[in-house]
């Protein structure tokens, strides 16, 4: 990051500390307001075509014990980030959680808490956590396909990598930072990117040489995709102009994976425009597929039903397609994995299912 960028981040963080300090100086009860991070407070941004936080604000006040703790932790994190920036170091989110062990009263009870607070700071300062020198410990996903990228490695050397020819069967591994200063797309020859939920299905498509046969980029999401994975997809889509399809299991959780890729996740709605790919299309298993392809199924459990019902009130799923599919799934009371397609043979997914589905979507 540039010196200037760091300065901006530091001054934004100082702003938070200053606001608390000033309130104390005036004899007020210190508080911090941030947008509510719930599904009731996400609005569709027509310009950017992604879901962003709305106007509902929540206050974190020292009047309550939990609020007071959050303010104290916020002060400590601000202090930590300032130190990281000054020392030109970075820490993983997990490391930050462990650093907090030494913060006495300010220490976090779980890493979820510290992760969320880092996100809160992004929202308030309008910076990204990469600006804070905080990075996730999880690695990004894997990619196989005919794209050539240039990655600046830890030694500052620029490596040119073709994601089909220069990698093994597990593909190119997406680093946690995929911004322009780190990764550039040099050359590509692909009709679409297919983002896949499960590792088993990714390997199936690789083994069946789906990338070459259908001129596609195969990408493994690893469940709910990390930020860098989503950012990588977004850049491929935007800069290389390659359409994106998302291939998942047929259950409520998979629908949410698609939503986070295409519409933006509720947790990170403040940076949806960086992460979401509004043109991404769904080619995963639907309730209709379960019926049409007569797939082997499991019964919905209580959590599944609860999740589906909750999706019916989620503004991101408000269109006809999702409403019908969710209601149908509740009605048939069944879900299916993408690997259930193996019922018809190992090549069925690449020879029949995907060509049919992608044909409908006009991608293949």
């Amino acid at each position, binding site marked *: 990051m540039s010196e200037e960028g760091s300065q901006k981040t530091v001054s934004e963080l100082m702003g938070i500390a200053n606001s608390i*300090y000033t309130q104390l100086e005036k004899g*007020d009860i210190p508080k911090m307001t941030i947008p509510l991070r719930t599904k009731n407070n996400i609005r569709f941004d027509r310009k950017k075509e992604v879901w962003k936080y709305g106007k509902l604000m929540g206050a974190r006040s020292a009047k309550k014990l939990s609020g007071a703790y959050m303010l104290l932790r916020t002060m400590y994190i601000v202090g930590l980030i300032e130190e990281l920036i000054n020392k030109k170091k970075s820490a993983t989110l997990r490391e930050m959680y462990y650093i907090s062990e030494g913060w006495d009263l300010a220490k976090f009870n779980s890493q979820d808490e510290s992760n969320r607070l880092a996100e809160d700071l992004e929202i308030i300062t309008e910076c990204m956590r990469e600006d804070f020198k905080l990075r996730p410990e999880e690695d990004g996903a894997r990619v196989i396909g005919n794209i050539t990228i240039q990655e600046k490695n830890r030694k500052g050397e620029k490596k040119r990598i073709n994601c089909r020819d220069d990698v093994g069967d597990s593909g190119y591994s997406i680093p946690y930072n995929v911004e322009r200063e780190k990764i550039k797309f040099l050359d590509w020859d692909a009709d679409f990117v297919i983002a896949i939920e499960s590792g088993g299905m990714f390997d199936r498509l690789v083994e069946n040489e789906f990338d070459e046969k259908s001129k596609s980029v195969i990408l493994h999401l690893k469940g709910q995709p990390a930020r860098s994975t989503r950012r990588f997809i977004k850049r491929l889509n935007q800069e290389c102009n390659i359409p994106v399809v998302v291939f998942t299991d047929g259950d409520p959780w998979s629908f949410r994976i698609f939503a986070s890729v295409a519409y933006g996740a509720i947790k990170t709605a403040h940076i949806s425009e960086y992460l979401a790919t509004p043109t991404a299309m769904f080619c995963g298993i639907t309730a209709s597929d379960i019926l049409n392809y007569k797939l082997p199924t499991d019964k919905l459990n209580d959590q599944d039903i609860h999740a589906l019902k909750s999706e019916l009130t989620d503004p991101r799923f408000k269109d006809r397609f999702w409403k019908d599919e969710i209601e149908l799934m509740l009605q048939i009371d069944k879900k299916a994995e993408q690997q259930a397609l193996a019922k018809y043979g190992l090549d069925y997914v690449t020879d029949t299912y995907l060509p049919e589905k992608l044909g409908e979507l006009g991608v293949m």
Partner: protein
Amino acid sequence: METLSVAEELAKKQKEISIAEFFERNKHVLGFGSLTRAILTAVKEGVDNSLDACEESNILPEIFIQIDKAGKDEYVVIIEDNGPGIVKRVVPNAFGRLLYGSRFHSIRQSRGQQGIGISAVVMYAQLTTGKPTTIRSKVQGKDVAYEIDLMVDTKKNRPEKLHERFVIWEKEHGTRVEATVKARYTGGRQSVYEYLRATAIVNPHARIVFVDPEGERTVFERATEKMPSPTKEIKPHPEGIELGTLLKMAKGTQQKKMTGFLKGEFSRISMRVAREICDKASIPYDMRPKNMKIDQAKDILKAIKKVKIMAPPTNCLSPIGELLIKKGLKNVLEGVRPEFYAPPITREPKVYQGNPFQVEVGIVYGGELKKDKSVEILRFANRVPLLYQQGGCACTSAIQNVDWRRYGLDQRGGEGVPFGPAIILVHTASTKIPFTSESKEAIADVPVIREEIEKALRFCGRKLKTHLNKSVKKKKTQEKFDIVQKILPQIAAKSASILNKKVPSLDKTITKIMNVVWIDDVIEYKNGRHKIDINIYNYTPKGRKFDLHTVIPIKNLDRKRIVPKPAEIKGNKVKWELKRIKSTEKLVVSFELAGLDEDEYDENELYVSDINPIYIIGAEPLPGDWNLDDAEPKTLEYFVEDHDALKEESSQDDEISVDGKINKVKVGEIDE
């Protein structure tokens, strides 16, 4: 002819039933129904006798109980006391003859009454093990103790002396009973241990030592040196007297005239009332009582109902008292560290069917008491624990009738025995406890008694609720203290260090977060003096001015050491009109009490007025009836159970006011 011979046949079968047979058939009634119960009854009869004997002679009881295993289902039970002892010639009859006793005819509060108890143990021992009971007794001033091995001659109901001797006994006086009985020793709720524990609670003046069959020794130490106030014997009250009793009394009296008989043999009958009764029964004043016919006796009973008669005197009762109930509970329950002892209540004496009675209740809450179980109910009648037939007892139905959810205990549907970490103690004292059966295990459901118990339970319940409210409020405030004392200073320090500025003053922020006046009282006991400090912190953003009230034993107040000077002292009530306390400032009110035991004052009762109580933590708003029950009442008030006749007649009498079903009678003194 035919019928006569049948009658003859039947007549042959008629014969006297021996005492032994009677006992054998009725042993469940006397508390020997099962092997586990028998051992408890044996201990109970002995201990009851010992306590009664000690109290009658004004001796602080020291009771020793030991149970040894003698064989399969056979135990030796030893009960020894430091009572006055029993003179030699009385011993055989007192222990070896049923229905022999000194208390059967007296109307006063005592544990034993019928004179069955201890001789039933002797009888049970000989019937089940064939062994005699050994009694040793020594009276003050004798050099040696008299010892006798004894059985009951079951044909004649007379003692059978097997072996008599004199022995050296280091005790100055006392009695020791050793009986071998067929029984089973168990633990649990209805065990000897529980019985003695409960006995220790309501007899804090007794020291009780128990050695169980394993040799385990438990000592319930004495919690007070104060003897229960002695009870007086009273004459029967006319209300509730039965026909047979009346006739028997008339036969036995020395009085020559009806009026004299009524006045002299009953309590609360003056000459005026005696004449009124005779008038209403159309009986001449000077009729000889011995000549009274059955019909005339019936008329007298009717007349008694029509005449208003003062309730019986109640000084024949000896309640445990609020302070001693608390001491007794504390003494025995120390181990479970209860969080709260609700101040016990001793209700004013009341009357049922001519019998005075008095109810006392105490509640213990929290600590290590079990949270998810039914509350433990400790029932007592005349200081004797009731361990059986809990379900059929007026104490239990009273507890079930109270909606405990209002007082902070769980109760399904607002009825039944509540759940929660609590012990409820109910003690009923009376000259005649209406037991449901001879085994004296449950109090009959007499409405006045049950209602009295319910009132007492509600009173204690309110105290419990106040305590629980207070602790919830304190907990919330504690949270705020955590914020302002620990977290806020760190937020300030950290934000200041990030910005390189000096740490700001937090006073104003603190008062805005707290927004309470915190009252924190400390009681210190040293050299026979209670020193009380009431610290008042104003954690609100504004200055606060209000009045503080408390109730203290005023005769123990050291008037030189009360700061600031109270605005008013009225009876036991003290009122301070405090000066304005500025925001974030503190005021201390302190005073000293002299000459009390440490236990006698262990909680400050604090009230505030002239301020919105939501700002106050650590004191209650002044109750609405604060000024009503001002000084010690000079006249005692109590309630007489109403009967219809009273209502009809009452309009003619100015002394009595009628108020629905209950008549409130005011009298100058309750006892002549």
